[in-house]
């Protein structure tokens, strides 16, 4: 008999994010509500009103103002958290680059939702994929437990002295944000102890030591500045691994930067992220029952992209597909596919790789659809012919 040592609750993804925020007790939260993120801000506002946190909650008039206020408060030395989704993230776009370039360790929870037009409130990942070059660390969650754990880990990652970069915690709209799941909570003391006290690098309100943050950098400085920032993001991978390992050692849950599921002898693999990773594992199990050597690879850390881990996991497969809920109009392939392809090229791995775009605007991606991807991979493995590289799952009129 396994004894429960932790508090077990039922929470939605939004509820879990809000609970993590309550335990983190940030100095400042500036946020604006947007479906399907609203419940995070709503719940957290209740915590503020009820005196359960010491947070200064700033009600702003837009997401551009929300992230601007967050940049200011973080630069002033306050631990800062926000949350948004879709159009809200798009409205934040210019400030996302500024938060990263000024090295402000803000943590943002983004509930993945499709971008307009046409207007759609449901899940896909085009919002955060569109921000992939902004310089933020991006972590994607498979389930509600992971949303909770990743939010807490995010604080430690962002604030690490060698990282000092903003972190985006991404969860799928409705599929995770509004689905109630069982999860285990840490105690308030455990969270407080794990994240530790915030030791800000900059304090704009220190009048005895005035500094300038956000000064212009003309052509003789800008390039070096941008490279230093890019280098820091690449190096952050090690810290993400270290924080996750420490979390695992303390609380017996860890995720890695990728999760290779039944990949040891796998010949066919689907690479994906977010909640799709869970559905894909279910399909993998079914193929394994039939004796098919199927596996899957979950990308937990999308920025910085775990080049070596991805290539290592895929180096022996006969055929692989990248399954993602975003489309990159005019590009040689969608974002995650292009990154996986790039990782393989970096590491000198030659694999038969195809792309599948699925689930745009919240269209369901059931196991039977993912099954068809594995069937397609079986064909490629048997014939050795890749055929069409870019594929679209359950798109009417596309054959």
């Amino acid at each position, binding site marked *: 008999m396994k004894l429960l040592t932790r508090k077990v609750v039922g929470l939605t993804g939004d509820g879990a994010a809000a609970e993590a925020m309550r335990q983190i007790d940030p100095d400042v939260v500036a946020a604006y509500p947007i479906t399907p993120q609203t419940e995070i801000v709503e719940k957290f506002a209740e915590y503020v009103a009820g005196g359960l946190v010491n947070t200064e909650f700033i009600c702003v008039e837009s997401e551009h103002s929300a992230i601007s206020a967050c940049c200011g408060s973080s630069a002033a030395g306050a631990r800062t958290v926000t949350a948004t989704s879709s159009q809200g993230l798009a409205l934040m776009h210019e400030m996302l680059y500024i938060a990263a370039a000024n*090295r402000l360790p803000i943590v943002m929870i983004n509930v993945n939702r499709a971008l307009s037009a046409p207007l759609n409130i449901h899940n896909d990942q085009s919002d955060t994929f569109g921000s992939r070059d902004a310089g933020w660390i991006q972590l994607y969650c498979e389930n509600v437990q992971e949303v909770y754990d990743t939010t807490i880990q995010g604080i430690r990652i962002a604030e690490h002295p060698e990282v000092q970069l903003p972190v985006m915690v991404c969860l799928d709209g409705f599929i995770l944000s509004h689905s109630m799941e069982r999860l285990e909570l840490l105690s308030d003391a455990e969270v407080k102890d794990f994240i530790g006290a915030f030791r800000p690098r900059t304090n704009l309100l220190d009048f005895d030591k*005035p*500094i300038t*943050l956000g*000064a*212009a950098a003309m052509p*003789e400085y800008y390039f070096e*500045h941008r490279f230093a920032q890019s280098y820091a993001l690449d190096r952050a991978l090690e810290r993400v691994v270290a924080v996750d390992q420490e979390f695992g050692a303390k609380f017996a849950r860890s995720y890695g930067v990728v999760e290779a599921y039944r990949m040891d002898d796998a010949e066919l693999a689907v690479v994906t992220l977010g909640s799709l990773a869970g559905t894909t594992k279910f399909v993998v199990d079914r193929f394994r029952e039939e004796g098919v050597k199927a596996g899957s690879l979950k990308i937990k850390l999308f920025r910085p992209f775990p080049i070596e881990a991805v290539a290592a996991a895929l180096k022996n497969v006969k055929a692989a597909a990248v399954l993602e809920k975003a489309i990159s109009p005019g590009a040689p392939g969608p974002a995650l596919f292009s990154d996986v392809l790039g990782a393989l090229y970096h590491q000198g791995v030659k694999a038969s790789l195809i792309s599948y775009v699925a689930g745009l605007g919240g269209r369901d991606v059931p196991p039977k659809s993912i099954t068809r991807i594995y069937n397609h991979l079986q064909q490629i493995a048997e014939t050795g012919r890749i055929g069409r590289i870019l594929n679209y799952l359950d798109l009417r009129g596309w054959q």
Partner: protein
Amino acid sequence: MKDDSIRKLDKAKLPAWDEIPLGWALLSEGSDDFKTGGWRSQHPVLDPEKCTSCLFCWIYCPDSAIRVKDGKMAGFDESLCKGCGICSTECPQGAIKMAEGAGALKEGE
């Protein structure tokens, strides 16, 4: 990174990428190293009779171009004033008027 300290940039030596201060945080009270005076197509003119040295101009100036001496308004810094006119708009006494051209920015001109 070699240097993540917050410091004043040494302009004599251009830093390599790993010598750039972390997040471009600079030990300086403003952008006074960046000479924007050459941008000016209008210039402010101070009326010392009307000026009460409330220093609204100093607070609002985006470019450290208001000179202050012994707590009093002491004219404009020619190398920094880009002629935006914010001081003129914000002055509660109407003591700063904008005039055409780059001007010499002498006090009381």
